[in-house]
């Protein structure tokens, strides 16, 4: 019954390799034995950025995995459900009105994004539940509606903002890891750790939800409580990432699917695999974004969307295959 997973071991090895190699790469290759200014760039700029990318990728991927289990729908992701937009709105409001405060060292932007994410999850869930099911059309329509609504509110905020604020919002909305540092990493980590632990704690429940809420009830799952905890974990992670890096799309959709093909759908194995894959994927994408048109940078959100768009279409066309939830 218990078998070591080759898939997870492979992902772990690749993730470790990426974490070690990616800081060296960039506009200029910097070896580990560098000194002086180069060492400062390596340790002070590139390393925290790579770590941020890994954490952000993991968080987006894990929240996608949680949504897919909860909504029993392979197209449920932070992006398609409008949760990223909700988080972005929260953060944009915060940037515009700039209440600079921090609670327990966590920046206010992160908390605002978390609240935005949570609100939009509750909205989408309420809307689809009202329509009587989590079918793909209902879910996507609700997600798109919420996404558009929040996006237009963000545009409005931008419109009434001065150029400084407006520029900050535009740049950040593209999804970028360019401004990450150890401070940002410290802001990501509490969300990363809490969210991951919550989901790890709920791996059996996610398995049961994936097959059906009625079955979960009959096996003794306290479905009301579990749903709230999953909502909480997912909003923490989406909010945490969006506040720091902006809305980066498609990581949350692709990673769980690819991992399901690699290690199966049992969340005991799917969770670590998704964590590793999401981190690996965003780390590699971000490194590419630094190198492709160096010395300039492609915002990583553009890169993930370029890869994610075709994947999304493939998923739509292949939904009856072994990807179905």
């Amino acid at each position, binding site marked *: 019954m218990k078998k070591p997973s080759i898939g997870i071991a492979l992902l772990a090895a690749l993730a470790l390799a990426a974490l070690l190699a990616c800081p060296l790469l960039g506009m200029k290759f910097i070896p580990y034995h560098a000194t002086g200014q180069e060492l400062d760039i390596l340790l002070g700029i590139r390393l925290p950025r790579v770590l941020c990318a890994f954490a952000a990728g993991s968080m987006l991927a894990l929240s996608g995995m949680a949504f897919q289990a909860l909504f029993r729908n392979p197209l449920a992701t932070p992006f398609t459900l409008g949760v990223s937009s909700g988080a972005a709105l929260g953060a944009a409001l915060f940037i515009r009105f700039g209440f600079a405060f921090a609670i327990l060292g966590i920046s206010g932007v992160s908390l605002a994004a978390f609240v935005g994410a949570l609100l939009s999850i509750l909205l989408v869930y309420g809307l689809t539940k009202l329509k009587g099911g989590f079918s793909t059309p209902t879910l996507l329509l609700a997600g798109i509606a919420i996404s558009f609504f929040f996006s237009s509110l963000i545009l409005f905020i931008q419109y009434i903002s001065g150029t400084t604020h407006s520029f900050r919002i535009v740049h950040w909305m593209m999804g970028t890891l360019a401004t990450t540092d150890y401070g940002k990493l410290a802001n990501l980590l509490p969300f990363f750790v809490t969210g991951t632990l919550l989901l790890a704690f709920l791996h059996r429940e996610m398995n049961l939800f994936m097959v059906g809420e009625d079955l979960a009830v009959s096996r003794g799952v306290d479905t009301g409580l579990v749903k709230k905890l999953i909502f909480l974990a997912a909003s923490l992670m989406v909010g945490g990432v969006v506040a720091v890096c902006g809305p980066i799309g498609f990581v949350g959709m692709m990673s769980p699917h690819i991992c399901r093909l690699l290690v199966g759908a*049992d969340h005991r194995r799917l969770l670590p695999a998704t964590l590793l894959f999401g981190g690996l994927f965003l780390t590699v994408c971000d490194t590419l974004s630094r190198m492709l048109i160096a010395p300039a940078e492609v915002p990583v959100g553009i890169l993930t969307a370029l890869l994610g768009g075709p994947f999304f279409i493939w998923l739509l066309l292949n939904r009856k295959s*072994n990807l179905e939830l």
Partner: protein
Amino acid sequence: MNGSIIQVEELSLTLSGNEILKGVSLDIGAGEYVSIIGPNGAGKTSLVKCIAGIYSAWRGAIRIEGKPFGDYGSKELAMRQSYVPQAEGRSAPLTVEEFVAMGRYPHLSAFTSMKAGDYAAIDQAIDQAGLLPFRQRKLNTLSGGERQMVFIAAALAQNTKIILLDEPATFLDYRHQAAVATLLKTACRENGITVLAVHHDINTATACSDRIVALKEGRIAFEGTAAETANTQVLKNIYGTEFETTSSPRRAIPFIVAGGAR
């Protein structure tokens, strides 16, 4: 009968304005096999879902082992009764083994992993349901009949005294219908498990059951043994259409043939 294990008193259920159940009372003895039959929309599935805890907005009383429903914690209840929904239209890329293992859920706490006893229960359930060759197959690669057997195996792995089933044989071919019926009958007769099953097919119901309860428009229209139910007049009252019976030397109870369409 060794005393009642499920007691339902004056159970009523209204779903989005429609009265589905209108005062159903039912007493099921430990180790009994009781089938629920009745026309479409009679409230059969709803009755089972109320007892399984899936619908909670009912009025009346349900007692399991003499204890009121509301006094049970969700895991505590799941250690006493399991539920098998229709497998039709449900799938997941989980292996048979992983799915059956989910039946152990109420016996586990969040921080412990499965122990030898859990693995033994899973193995036994898979074996009992004749699923050994399918162990490592993904659910979404199985036929409807095989998947239904997997769902029943998961309920067996849950190791409960009561199994509730919602039309376990309805969409299956004849071989799988027979396999499901045999499996449930064995579980009841040999392991003393109480079975409460909604059956669409009257012949499946009469072949397995100690007692048959017929629902009609949210009320109990008839209650009796399999032999008493296999009566054309009784069935006409329940379903509102003509029936014929035909006897077989292999069965104590005559076969029922619906004679409505000519």
